[in-house]
């Protein structure tokens, strides 16, 4: 398949135009998309690049610093030497121009960045992000290095670039995340260069390797019984096995042949440019971040490959943000034999000597040369790689969420097409759609699998098999009907379907309900009545009149129920199985097996006829019951017990019928609600999603506003010292200087007066107290001879009290006198700074 840019162009326009539309047209878009037949090579853009607005670029983009100039000179020197030494080899990518037309050394184009998104913290996340976020521009011609290498910021802004741009962006992210990452310039196969995955299996379709839990082998115990002797002929068995093996081998061979033929047919025509197609990818070296082994990442797909992968045909050079190495190893046989020990001078030639070698080379090679190096370094005054000229890389959360250019991406695989959409882009919440086809040309769809996100009906996954027309749906927990899984042909009730439920949420513990046209099977889990299985068989539909309404209803013919063992009852009284043969008017009850028994007890009842118009109800007779008891010595049931059992069972039969009718009703309601949900789906918006959740955003804004107001109020509340004096002045709008001075003196005077008043108050109290004490003392002096002991005690108590009070007052006065001047000064200072006075007082 050749690249035909002109032809692809039109289709691309339709796609990209739609991308700009808002969500309204998203559904149309989807249908139109599925109608468009996109050729597998349309994974890249051929539209001309948008122009850089030079005025908006930072200065570092438009000119070179002295260090960079020096670097460029050194690179030029290196290039000349290289051309001289290796005249046969192709030119190196050393100093391409950037989007502003300025020459920059490739290493400085790398800008190691760690973005604040958790998914970009490991290499898988980074690689798939870059593959998703950018769209590819092909190199033109495909066997030459690009002349321009844009900055990662520009690439991310335009969301398009060559494989070199892809690698630069990915490498920047990986370096930021702490990986030992390098850009690799080299040669790869056509499929790799053109991002043509139409010969690969879709990764989503590859069978997931399940860890088989090996059944713990039963330890052979000492007293394990020997298995019964096998009386079959060994010879016959061997003969049989042999035949079987032969048949299997033949079948396998046939299959292999068919597969080989198939492969032969699918093989692409040989590529005339094989080995010449230039490609750029990323190399991750082992060591950092617990990477055990070196490997490649193809930035176009985000997949990892081993360094010996046959798709990579040769390497010219590798570089990171610190240095640049040229490969000196032979690549005629691909990258199979290459070693990536960049410190090995016989295999890799560096541009900048010495420096940063220690980081890259492995620890063992590090030890010896280090000493020499250090000495050398001192002599050489090592030139360090100038810092990156690229400004910080930024990706907005909105862009991060959109992920794909225009919010969607289509990838063609072998017999499959994968469509990816940003969440909330499509109205029905579709995020991934995988269509598999029966034929290589992708015309006949065989299954359509869709993944959804944020749907309010909790639908997670839907798969449609076009052959059987069977749809299966998976739901997340959270539905009111606890539906977990639904398999159906149509949404019409009473047809074949299977519904699984989250049984622990449901009160009836229903786990699964399988319906066939005349059957319904329900299984339950963890019920208190130990029921775990109910199977109902219906007859032909008849008309039933219930509550004045004529209903079409299928009569129940037979209901079978199974129960787990209830250990609170003896086994022979614990029902294991009940069969209501409604149409035969019979009920069969089988009890659980007793310990060490192999045959259970059972009872068969024949229901007595109910009272009809003229006839009386049939009386119960012992002949209506038959049964078997394992142990002939147990006491047989009395007639009363049997009768009571029968009455109980008849009641149960009615209950069971009600249960089954309820189940039918539930199925109908689930189906109708599913129909409604499918035709109109709401997308759920998390309360933690401020960009989408309107109410949450409003709430937040409201909260912020309230907080602001509160702050404001608090400010206002602060005491206005000037208010009383200002009122006396008649509240002038603007204070004159004179007024201001007046205000100040008033205020100060008032405060002085206050302080003075307080002091005199304390003083007067003290005097009063002292006076009283003196009086008392005099009185005591006069009368102490005639006083009783009690009075004397009183007096003494009073004295000590009074003394204490006087002392306290004295202390207070002293403190007040001490602090009054300070307070006065503080007020003065405050007034000086007061906003309304400050201007006048300075």
């Amino acid at each position, binding site marked *: 398949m050749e690249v035909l840019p002109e032809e692809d162009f039109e289709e691309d326009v339709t796609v990209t135009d739609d991308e700009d539309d808002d969500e309204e047209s998203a559904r149309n878009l989807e249908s139109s998309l599925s109608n468009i037949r996109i050729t597998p090579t349309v994974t890249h853009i051929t539209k001309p690049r948008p122009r850089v607005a030079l005025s908006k670029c930072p200065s570092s983009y438009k000119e070179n610093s002295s260090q960079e100039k020096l670097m460029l000179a050194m690179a030029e020197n290196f290039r000349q030497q290289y051309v001289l030494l290796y005249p046969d080899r192709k030119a190196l990518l050393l100093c391409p121009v950037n989007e502003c037309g300025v020459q920059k050394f490739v290493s400085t184009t790398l800008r190691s960045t760690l973005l604040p998104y958790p998914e970009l913290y490991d290499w898988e996340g980074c690689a798939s992000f870059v593959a998703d976020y950018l769209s590819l521009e092909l190199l033109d011609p495909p066997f030459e290095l690009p002349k321009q290498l844009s900055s990662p910021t520009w690439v991310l802004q335009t969301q398009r670039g060559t494989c070199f741009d892809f690698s630069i962006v990915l490498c920047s992210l990986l370096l930021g995340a702490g990986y030992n990452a390098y850009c690799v310039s080299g040669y790869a196969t056509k499929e790799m260069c053109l991002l043509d995955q139409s010969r690969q299996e879709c990764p989503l379709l590859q069978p997931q390797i399940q860890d088989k839990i090996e059944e713990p082998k039963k330890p052979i*115990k000492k007293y*394990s019984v*020997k298995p019964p002797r096998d009386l079959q002929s060994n010879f016959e068995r061997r003969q049989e096995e042999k035949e079987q093996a032969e048949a299997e081998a033949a079948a396998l061979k046939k299959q292999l042949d068919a597969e080989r033929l198939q492969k032969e047919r699918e093989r692409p025509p040989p590529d005339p440019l094989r080995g010449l197609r230039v490609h750029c990818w990323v190399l991750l070296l082992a060591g950092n971040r617990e990477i055990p082994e070196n490997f490649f990442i193809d930035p176009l797909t985000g997949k990892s490959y081993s360094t010996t992968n046959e798709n990579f045909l040769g390497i010219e050079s590798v570089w990171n943000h610190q240095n640049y190495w040229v490969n000196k190893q032979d690549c005629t046989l691909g990258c199979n034999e290459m070693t990536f020990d960049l410190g090995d001078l016989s295999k890799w030639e560096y541009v900048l000597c010495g420096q940063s070698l220690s980081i890259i080379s492995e620890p063992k090679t590090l030890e010896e040369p280090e000493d020499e190096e250090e000495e050398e370094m001192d002599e050489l005054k090592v030139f360090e790689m100038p810092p990156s000229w690229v400004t910080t890389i930024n990706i907005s959360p909105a862009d991060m969420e959109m992920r794909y250019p225009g919010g969607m991406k289509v990838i063609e695989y072998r017999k499959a097409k994968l469509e990816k959409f940003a969440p909330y882009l499509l109205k029905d919440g579709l995020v991934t759609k995988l269509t598999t086809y029966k034929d290589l040309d992708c015309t006949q769809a065989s299954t359509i699998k869709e993944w959804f996100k944020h749907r309010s009906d909790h639908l997670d996954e839907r798969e449609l098999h076009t052959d059987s027309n069977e749809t299966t749906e998976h739901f997340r927990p959270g539905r009111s009907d606890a539906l977990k899984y639904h398999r159906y042909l149509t949404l019409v009730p009473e047809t074949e379907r299977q519904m699984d439920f989250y049984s622990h949420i449901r009160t009836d513990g229903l786990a699964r309900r399988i319906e066939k046209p005349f059957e319904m099977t329900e299984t339950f889990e963890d019920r208190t009545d130990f029921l775990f299985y109910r199977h109902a068989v219906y007859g032909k539909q008849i008309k039933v009149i219930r509550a004045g309404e004529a209903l079409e209803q299928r009569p129940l013919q037979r209901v079978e129920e199974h129960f787990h063992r209830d250990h609170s009852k003896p086994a022979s009284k614990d029902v294991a199985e009940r069969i209501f043969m409604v149409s035969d008017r019979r009920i069969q009850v089988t009890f659980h097996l007793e310990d060490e028994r*192999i045959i259970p007890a059972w009872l068969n009842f024949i229901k007595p006829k109910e009272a009809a118009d003229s006839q009386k109800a049939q009386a119960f007779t012992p002949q209506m019951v038959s049964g078997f008891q394992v142990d002939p010595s147990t006491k047989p049931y009395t*007639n009363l017990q049997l009768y009571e059992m029968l009455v109980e069972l008849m009641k149960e039969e009615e209950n069971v019928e009600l249960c089954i009718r309820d189940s039918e009703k539930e199925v109908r309601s689930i189906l109708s609600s599913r129909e409604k949900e499918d035709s109109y789906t709401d997308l759920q918006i998390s309360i933690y999603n401020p960009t989408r959740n309107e109410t949450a955003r409003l709430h937040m804004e409201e909260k912020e506003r309230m907080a602001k107001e509160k702050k404001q109020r608090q400010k206002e509340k602060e005491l206005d010292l000037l208010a009383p004096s200002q009122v006396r002045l008649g509240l002038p709008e603007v204070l004159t200087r004179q007024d201001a001075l007046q205000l100040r003196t008033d205020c100060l005077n008032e405060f002085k007066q206050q302080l003075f008043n307080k002091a005199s108050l304390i003083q007067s109290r003290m005097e009063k107290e002292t006076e009283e004490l003196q009086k008392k003392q005099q009185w005591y002096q006069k009368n102490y001879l005639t006083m009783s002991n009690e009075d004397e005690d009183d007096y003494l108590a009073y004295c000590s009290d009074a003394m204490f009070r006087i002392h306290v007052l004295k202390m207070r006065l002293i403190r007040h006198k001490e602090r009054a001047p300070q307070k006065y000064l503080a007020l003065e200072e405050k007034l000086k700074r007061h906003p309304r006075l400050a201007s006048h007082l300075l």
Partner: protein
Amino acid sequence: MNWQQDEPKVIDEEMLKQAIEEQGPQGQAGDISKKEGVQYEDVLQLRLDYRNILKIYHLWHFTSLTKLQLDNNVIERIEGLKNLTNLVWLDLSFNNIQVIEGLNSLVKLKDLSLFNNRISVIENLDSLRDLHVLSFGNNAIAQLENVLYLRKFKNLRTLNLAGNPICEEESYKTFVTAYLPDLVYLDYRLLDEQTRETAYTKYKYAIEGMQENELQEQQAIEAQKISNEELQLHKDAFVEFLNGPQLYDSMFDEDPDGEKLALLPGMEELLESFKSKMEALCVQIFDAGLTQHAQRTAEVESFFSCSHEAVADNRQKAAQIAADFESSRRQKILEMQQITDVELLEDHISLCQEQASQLSETLLSLELQLVDQLEDIFKDFERSISDMVGGFIEYVQGIFAQCRDLENQHHEQQLEIALATLEKVVKNELEEEIPDDMAMLLVDKDTVTNAVSASHDIHLLKIDNREDELLTRINSWMSGLLKSIHDEEVKRNRKRTSEIRNYVSYVKDELEDMRLSEHH
């Protein structure tokens, strides 16, 4: 109010019959039960209120009774209820009972009402550990301390004491609340948090002291239990009282001569070394016994788990076969009921009968196979367990022989010392004073020798006895175990065989019935 004039009665047959009929099933069920007759031991509930009963009588047949109402009578003594061990609910309110008695066998009782009687002391309820609800209202309980008796009922949640003299006391409510902390309802009311708190603070110290005592008792009981368990383990290992000097002590317990001889000069050291050596040997037996016991237990467990596994496996297979047969049989019977042609039916019936015989053969051969398998492993088990026991016995015998050697040695040394002392006594060379007991012995050579050898004989006897005891017990344990396993297996086999026979004959009878009914 004519019941007041009625004469006091004793419960009799007629009264019971009437009550059962009144309270039994009604309607069609009643007819059926009347026709069939009611067995007294099947009755679950009985109400005998307002009947002027003086004496409880005739109730011993009602063994499965769970609820009995005897309220509003004139009963004076609680009697005749010994057999009603399944009672959960007993109402004796509004009677003339003075003493609580005769309730000790009703251990399942949860709800007991003695409301409005003349009881003055709460007592005689010790065995009724499961009591939830107790009603003692309107009685003559006068001692507040009597309430403490109720502390032992850990499940008691509802208590009624209203209308007793103790309620007059001011601290009644707080006292009861404090001492019965698990109580939820007291005298028709829910006990709220506040009452609890005040009660607790008021009686804090008394209760804490009491709890301390109870805790100590509990701990003592537990310690006793642990030591009992340990002893039981030793007994199971057949080496009880061998982990110390107990054997040595028992040797000297019933040895009057030995006691006297022990006072001889120089004997103390000899005895000391003898004791320590004996003890060391005993401990050897003890340790070996415990390890051997653990091994035997593991062996027995392994055998049982394997045999149970095999039986369960076999049972599952057989049950599956039987269930398959049963479901196909039912299907067939339904089909046959549709058939009207006699000959065709006859064919079907004979076919079915053949299948039934085939089933019986399959099941029996399966059973036979299991019997063979079990017999094999049983033989292995028998061999290895008897090997174990034999090995242990040999070991123990070896050590006991060492014990005897030690004793012989001791005997010789003792004799030597005794004779030497005798010589000294005779020569009057002894420095210390000799006690009188000893003087009696140290008369002449024969007396001394006799005493020493008597002591020696007793010692040997003790050792022999202990050895014999160990051997007989371990042997009887082994034979008992093997016999019980064998018997169990025979029982199981009989049960299974009879089960199969029973079922097959049932199936065949059923077919025969069908054939007969068709012919008629």
